[in-house]
């Protein structure tokens, strides 16, 4: 177990390093000169040379890679070409907003997903079960860029309950969080329901009932704990789709998170921000995967001893 953990941490660092190197090399190999973008076509050659030297872009690729790696270890991600603000500051602000959004939608998913899945399984084959299954099928297949506008149409324009976009007050998080959550929620409901149906006919539950436990205690101590295992795996695995969904959702709702920062930086050719965003998104994805694995070993004792 201990050796295993050390190896996985090592692998994690290796993965992040690999992502950084690949994105760095690609960004610098792609045709298109950042100097030209910054100064414009009409700039003089001496200006270009001076700026290139001051940014260190005239050095060999390997040395540049070394310099920016050293910078990152010191918490220095460079300066935004467009707004001249330090990238680290812009990025911390953005990632905070994205995490608020992501965690809100994860909460929505967990609360409603487990509850709805529970009731669907309890009323197996009845109208409630069928209704929940059919509507979750709809939400699984709807892409984020359509669900967002639909929710705006319904709740902001037609009913007028919630703001269309922006980040003012508590109300404005509801629609983006719902947009992110509904697809994941549908998958969670389906999985919870199917797992519970399987479990309720299993030996574990039969034994628990035969022992004379109350229905409530069977549900909480036996069924629910076992359902959590696949749900945690599912949510960990789906975190990537949550992140890519966040890129789209933040663009729709003008939510100042990492996804919107990434898309905006691409449009303004702000290379340092683009690179930092990609690194950060990839790193959080890899780290969440790692944490899922650890959490998995806590929930499922069988994983610990094998």
């Amino acid at each position, binding site marked *: 177990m201990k050796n295993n953990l050390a190896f996985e941490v090592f692998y994690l660092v290796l*993965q992040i390093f690999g992502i950084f190197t690949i994105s760095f090399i690609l960004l610098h190999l792609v045709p298109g000169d950042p100097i030209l973008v910054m100064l414009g076509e009409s700039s003089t050659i001496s200006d270009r040379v001076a700026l290139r030297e001051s940014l260190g872009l005239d050095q060999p690729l390997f040395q540049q890679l070394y310099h920016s790696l050293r910078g990152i270890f010191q918490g220095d991600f460079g300066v935004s070409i467009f707004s001249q603000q330090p990238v680290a500051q812009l990025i911390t602000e953005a990632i905070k907003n994205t995490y608020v959004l992501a965690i809100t939608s994860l909460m929505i998913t967990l609360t409603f997903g487990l509850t709805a899945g529970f009731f669907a399984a309890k009323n197996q084959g009845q109208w409630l079960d069928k209704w929940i299954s059919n509507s979750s099928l709809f939400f699984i297949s709807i*892409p984020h*860029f359509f669900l967002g506008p639909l929710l705006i149409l319904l709740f902001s*324009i037609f009913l007028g309950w919630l703001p269309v976009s922006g980040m003012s007050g508590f109300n404005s998080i509801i629609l983006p969080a719902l947009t992110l959550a509904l697809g994941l929620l549908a998958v969670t409901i389906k999985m919870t329901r199917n797992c519970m149906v399987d479990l309720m006919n299993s030996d574990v539950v039969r034994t628990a009932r035969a022992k004379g436990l109350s229905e409530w205690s069977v549900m909480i101590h036996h069924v629910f704990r076992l359902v959590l295992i696949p749900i945690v795996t599912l949510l960990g695995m789906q975190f*990537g789709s949550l992140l*890519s969904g966040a890129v789209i959702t933040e663009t729709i709702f003008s939510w100042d998170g990492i996804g919107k920062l990434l*898309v905006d930086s691409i*449009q303004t050719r702000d290379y340092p921000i683009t690179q930092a965003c990609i690194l950060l998104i990839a790193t959080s994805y890899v780290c969440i995967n790692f944490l899922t694995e650890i959490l998995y070993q806590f929930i499922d004792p069988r994983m610990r001893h094998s």
Partner: protein
Amino acid sequence: MNKIALFFFAVWSFFVVVRLALNWDANEMIFYKILSDPSTDAWLGRDDYGRSILARLIDGLINSLTIVFIVTLVASSIGIIIGVVAGYFGGKIDQLISYFINLFMSFPGILLAIAFAAILSPGKLNLIIALSIGSWVSYARLARAQTLITKNCDYVKASKTMGSNDFWILKKHILPALQTPLLVEGTYSVAGLIIAEASLSFLGLGIQAPEASLGGMMRDSVRFLLVSPHYAIFVGASIMSLVYCINATGDFLHKYWNVEIIHDR
């Protein structure tokens, strides 16, 4: 096959044929009809430049499908070659390739595509590259698993005993056995690619305006939700119906050929 899917399929093909026969101009702008409601001259209304939404939808469909077709061709060729080589030759090569497959597998394809599209700056060629990078892995994984199964079949062993060389076995036994599972997998992945392409175009990383694309239209329509909600609904519903059709085709092929899709081996 699923009746609803067949219906959508018929509607889409009808409009594509009409579009090609009548040669609609999707870029014709009528400025006094900006964001107008559906009418006889533009069945789904007009967009913010006074262009017919229906004509642009069909053009967008053709553009998206072209991109998706090329990506599928590129990704499946790369994936099949890599997967078959890994599965057939095994050993060190297999270990190395499996490492890369796992590395790419650990990221969802759409996230990879967004990241690479971000690095590579917007454009059609870069869109194709980004989507291919995001989607070759599933083909490679399937091809590798299928090759491993076929390699150990008696008829392949018999062929080997009779002196066939590797090239002959690959051509006569391994590749034919890959056909049906890969076609089914390919159909499903086309549905995913349409969403991925639309997402990238929606973010402004894919097909660039003024060329019509499903994602690009979705992006424009969101800006005019208040004035003309039908624009967004038509575009969104068409993307969903398209994806639904393709997934239903995948289900149909899956059942019809009765194939087993095996990824891990």
